[in-house]
């Protein structure tokens, strides 16, 4: 198996699906010759032409709405939203139109589109280009949400997303585009709703999304030297969520920390922690902890930005507190 970057993995997934199905097209800003500022789409316009790799004006609501209509009438758009922060601009078309069309039409109209965007701070891009907003769309019935944590997931989840007849929002961590991972050359799709247990452990469960998976793995490495064996799980998709795997692990270890780069308040960590609380309560020997990004706008200064996101050391500290049986009150 070869190691390729997350960027290459996404590129491959799109190219393969566009070859396989001529109704798939890409639309967004600077997607054609520029291949997006992150260069993920380089080479695609050369192969598929400008009819299927469509550069748009800077009009997010416009091209999102256009994609919804295109999807309703027989094509499969992949909308490129340059920064996850621009999600706010497309919310009406995504959440009022795309998410609800199948339901409001009594099942008669489908919206098979993919919204491809990113998340992740610590790039010194300041508050309006650093947000992780997946909680907003996970909250809307009718949307599916995928969170690839490496090149392997990026390819497998993107292919599944394109073939899914529902609107799917897929978030890549913009800090990971150059990170390599082993990705098979042959066709491999990752189904939605299947979590991946990345590391077995018996003492504490660490659930991480996107690049927080790596944070949890590094925390596990720190903890194992202290005799604490952490189990690390990557849910891979938030909607649908593989609850069963998360609950089984919680029941096994009796201690859980959920780690996510969205804001801690009213977010993903709260939802997952809540489900574990409801359904594994009598197996918990410690409160389920949440570790999200600080509830502040992302600061520009490097001295401030880096402390707003969960780190392996931070996760290890919380894990030790749970292991010691410390009585943890809300801050």
């Amino acid at each position, binding site marked *: 198996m070869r190691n390729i970057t997350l960027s290459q993995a996404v590129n491959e997934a799109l190219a393969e699906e566009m070859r396989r199905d001529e*109704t798939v*097209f890409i639309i967004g800003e600077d997607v054609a010759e520029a291949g997006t500022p992150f260069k993920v789409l380089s080479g695609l316009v050369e192969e598929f032409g400008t*009819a*299927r790799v*469509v550069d*748009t*004006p800077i*009009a997010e*609501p*416009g*091209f*999102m*709405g*256009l*994609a*919804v*209509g*295109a*999807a*309703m*009438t*027989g*094509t499969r*758009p992949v909308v490129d939203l340059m920064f996850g922060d621009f999600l706010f601009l497309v919310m*009406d*078309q995504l959440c*009022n*139109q795309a998410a609800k*069309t*199948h*339901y*409001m*039409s*009594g*099942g*008669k*109209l*489908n919206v098979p589109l993919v919204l491809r965007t990113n998340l992740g701070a610590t790039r010194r891009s300041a508050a309006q280009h650093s947000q992780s907003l997946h909680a907003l769309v996970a909250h809307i*019935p*009718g949307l*599916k949400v995928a969170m690839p944590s490496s090149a392997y997931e990026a390819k497998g989840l993107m292919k599944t997303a394109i073939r*899914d*007849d*529902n609107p799917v929002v897929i978030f890549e961590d913009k800090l990971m585009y150059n990170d390599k991972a082993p990705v098979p050359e042959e066709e491999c799709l990752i189904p939605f709703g299947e979590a991946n247990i990345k590391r077995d452990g018996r003492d504490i469960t660490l659930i991480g999304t996107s690049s927080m998976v790596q944070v949890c793995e590094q925390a596990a490495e720190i903890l194992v030297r202290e005799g604490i064996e952490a189990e690390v799980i990557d849910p891979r998709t938030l909607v*649908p*969520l593989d*609850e*069963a795997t998360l609950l089984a692990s919680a029941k096994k270890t009796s201690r859980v920390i959920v780690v996510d780069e969205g804001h801690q308040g009213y977010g993903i960590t709260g939802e997952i922690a809540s*489900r574990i609380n*409801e*359904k594994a309560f009598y197996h918990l020997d410690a409160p389920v902890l949440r570790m999200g990004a600080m509830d502040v706008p992302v600061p520009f200064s490097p001295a401030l930005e880096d402390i707003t996101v969960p780190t392996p050391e931070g996760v290890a500290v919380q894990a030790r507190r749970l292991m010691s049986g410390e009585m943890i009150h809300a801050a």
Partner: protein
Amino acid sequence: MAKKSNTEDYLRMYRQMVRIRTFEDNANQLYLAAKMPGLTHMYSGEEAVAVGICEALKVTDKITSTHRGHGHCVAKGAEFKQMFCELLGKEEGYCRGKGGSMHIADQSNGNLGANAIVGGSMGIATGSAFTAKLLGRDDVTVCFFGDGATAQGLMYEVMNMAALWKLPVIYACENNGYSEYTRTEEIAAGSITARAEAFGIEAHQVDGQDVLAVNALTEKLVERARKGEGPFFIELMTYRYHGHHVGDINREYYRSKDEEKDWKDNRDPIIRFRSWLVEQGIASEDEIEAMNDEIKADAKAAVDYALDAKYPDVSEVDMHVYTDVTHALARNPA
């Protein structure tokens, strides 16, 4: 479609307009009799717009509609029974009762749906045209919207792209003089057609109460759009007889009764066309009366049917959230 010289076509146009008016009268009665859940928005007075345009379209051409969408729905080929069922939230409605008046869609006839967000379907219409072009079909999409929607940013974003990419879409602005409870002059600066022209889109203005004029113009533009000469913009001057929605009954504060009377008595599209049909010897008054009665009877039968029809079973509440999950809430049993 060939130029209208066919009696059948004229009569069908008349029938469709009367069907719309009759449907709306019945829907209004259902609301006043407290038999209809929620609110709805009457199209009465604007029939010539929907009919004139839709009679120029094929079944495979698409339309997107607005919250004032019953007229478009009927004009594009919908049946009374399923429409009334939808308005009453019954299972046999076009959307199995899950959309209601504001989201009524008739996919088999190319109606991509009414939209409760003002201007919300402009993107969808433009996307539909994009698909046609990408897949090499000659379908045209008509986007219905009101003068109020010209205040929405989305309109400019999609017109810009439609013009850049020469998409086969016709933007049809139903200017009925009012944006909810405010006169159009107070919410739309400058000229509406000039907005389209700013993007290099050919724009026309037409008397929306003259079904023949609307139809003739539309036929020309549709033909050109099929050849790739689109997009186009039409501003249709029309009037809605009822309030913004069925509950907007005391509306003299924003619209005078005299003005309403003037439009109803002197500019009604159905009365005008009826006179023309009789004048041209296409139909007699008696034949027309007979048609009207037949449509009234149809509507009554459909209303009675819909009132008795069953609601969707409660198990439907979490169906159709996703295409591949029958019951979304059964996903994670405790």
